[in-house]
């Protein structure tokens, strides 16, 4: 196994002047990046960072994010990237849950003041993009002289490397524990099928705190390639202009990335001859979009992929040469992964029978942080129960058929309806509430809330949305709100969400 830190060092030694990261006008090559990573590591060690201490990041995609990530790993820490869209209540809940010792904090973040206040006496802060009283300044960190320092912690395969949180406030946070070995194994598999090399330059706007963005970052750095960070895809023409200007060879996105590009972009107006591959994961992409992308960019290899955070990101992919005949499929297992379809008793199912996807491989997580019960439910005899339902065709290609849970997918985000239901239920005058996904052309799904008001209550949609805005990340806000007399329920009292999703209220 070659860990992330070892790969970065190897690439820095081999090609110190090769470009590693581009963010707006900032550029950094492998040699510089490695120097800054070492300096960060030395700084943390001088502050007596204990081995396996949790080092959280509340940073947008940026060069400091990457430097802090690798620096904390090299110092023997466990990196906990936090969702920058979250409110302070979620952020502090995660910090408390993982018992973070350190936090790299973007002081321009809208929740920074509240987070900093909570951290006082609990978590040491390194302030990025400014200074704040009682914190260390990021600007001082790269000054730490690390030229003669050796013995960086490269990470044992079974040693915890990162915790990725997949849910927020309500109930227990779920922190997926990934080891150095998990990350390394998934990187090797992805490098094998994507064929990445030092010549590659990928554009990505995927947040690094999600497993897909995390995977795109580390696979490309492992390959000695360059990652061009796009802050957002709000302005798709600017993204395409950037791709042309940077002679980008790859683009990584979710289904909504491509839906947005297809709705706004005439690809033939840009010089995209350098473009070699597109990757898509994070939820089903409509087959019409797959076909339109292939028509618009016939020389480009489109990789449709499937995975989950618990598998360090990736589980399956469709080889591009089979994409046309396997439309709608999530593909075959990536190298090093075994996939099975099983019934509720755990017995293997024959082709074309729908069951749960079970996965096994060196990329499968260690478990959930401080949650042995959830770990036992999800990891069974070395297999990961994904919670996703699917069948396989005679050739072993997977076709996903929904999830066992009612989680929504909106753009790059996973949303647990119960978090929104709990927030709405706090409002006076709400008797009952259920949240489901409503179809959206670009985002796949948006949040829709059905609310039963208490008798005589004065509720309106604006008040509910304003209340949610105070408590929830922007992407969790209900787009639609319907007030109804009652919610359809089963005989046992469970809300029939499928009826709400199909518009029968």
């Amino acid at each position, binding site marked *: 196994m070659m860990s992330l830190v070892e790969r970065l060092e190897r690439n820095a030694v081999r090609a110190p002047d090769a470009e590693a990261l581009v963010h707006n006008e900032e550029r950094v090559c492998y040699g510089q990046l490695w120097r800054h990573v070492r300096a960060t590591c030395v700084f943390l060690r001088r502050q007596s960072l204990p081995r396996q201490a949790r080092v959280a990041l509340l940073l947008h995609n940026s060069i400091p994010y990457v430097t802090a990530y690798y620096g904390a790993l090299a110092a023997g820490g466990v990196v906990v990237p936090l969702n920058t869209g979250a409110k302070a209540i979620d952020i502090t809940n995660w910090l408390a849950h993982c018992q973070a010792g350190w936090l790299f904090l973007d002081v*321009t973040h809208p929740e920074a003041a509240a987070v900093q206040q909570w951290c006082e006496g609990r978590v040491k802060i390194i302030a990025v993009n400014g200074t704040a009283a009682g914190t260390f300044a990021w600007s001082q960190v790269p000054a730490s002289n690390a030229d003669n320092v050796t013995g960086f912690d490269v990470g044992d395969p079974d040693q915890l490397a990162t915790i990725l949180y997949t849910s927020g406030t309500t109930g227990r946070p779920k922190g997926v524990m990934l080891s150095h070995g998990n990350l390394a194994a998934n990187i090797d598999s992805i490098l094998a099928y994507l064929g990445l090399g030092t010549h590659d330059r990928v554009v990505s706007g995927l947040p690094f705190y999600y497993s897909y963005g995390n995977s795109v970052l580390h696979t490309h750095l492992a390959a000695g390639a360059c990652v061009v960070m796009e*802050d957002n895809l709000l302005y798709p023409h600017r993204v395409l202009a950037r791709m042309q200007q940077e002679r980008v060879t790859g683009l990584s996105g979710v289904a909504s990335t491509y839906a947005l590009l297809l709705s706004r972009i005439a690809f033939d107006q840009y010089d995209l001859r350098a473009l070699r591959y597109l990757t898509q994961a994070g939820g089903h992409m409509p087959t019409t979009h797959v076909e339109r992308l292939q028509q618009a960019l016939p020389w480009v290899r489109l990789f449709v992929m499937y995975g989950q955070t618990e598998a360090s990101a990736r589980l399956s992919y469709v080889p591009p040469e089979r994409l046309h005949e396997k439309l709608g499929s999530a593909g075959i297992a990536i190298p090093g992964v075994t996939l099975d379809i099983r019934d509720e008793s755990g017995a293997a199912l024959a082709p074309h029978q729908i069951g749960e996807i079970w996965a096994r491989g060196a990329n499968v997580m260690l478990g959930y942080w401080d949650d042995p019960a959830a770990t036992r439910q999800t990891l069974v005899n070395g297999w990961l129960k994904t919670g996703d339902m699917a069948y396989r065709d005679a050739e072993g290609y997977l076709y996903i058929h929904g999830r066992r849970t009612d989680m929504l997918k909106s753009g790059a985000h996973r949303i647990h309806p119960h978090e929104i239901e709990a927030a709405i239920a706090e409002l006076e005058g709400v008797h009952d509430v259920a949240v489901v996904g409503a179809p959206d052309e670009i*985002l796949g799904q948006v949040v829709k809330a059905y609310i039963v008001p208490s008798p005589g209550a004065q509720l309106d949609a604006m008040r509910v949305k304003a209340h949610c805005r105070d408590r929830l990340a922007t992407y969790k806000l209900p787009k639609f709100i319907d007030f109804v007399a009652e919610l359809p329920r089963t005989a046992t009292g469970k809300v029939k969400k499928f009826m709400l999703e199909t518009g029968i209220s």
Partner: protein
Amino acid sequence: MTDTIKKRIREFVLSNYLFTNDPSALHDDESFMKRGIIDSTGVLEVIQFLNDEFGVTVTDEEMGPENLDSVISLAGFIQSKDAKTKALSA
């Protein structure tokens, strides 16, 4: 004129993205993107609003933060489009 345009834009953003009537909840120079007010579909909605409310069509080249990312930039953009239209028809 500018004040009327700004007022209308502010009302649109306040009611559709911040869910309030309180004008102090949004400063004219605040970045929609940095404050997390508007996402990628929100930008498309803003473009639709410009068309419906002011008859302004946004070209591909104009679709950027310098024109669409704050009350001030939107108001300036609408006025420049208006001036261009008048110049062309003069």
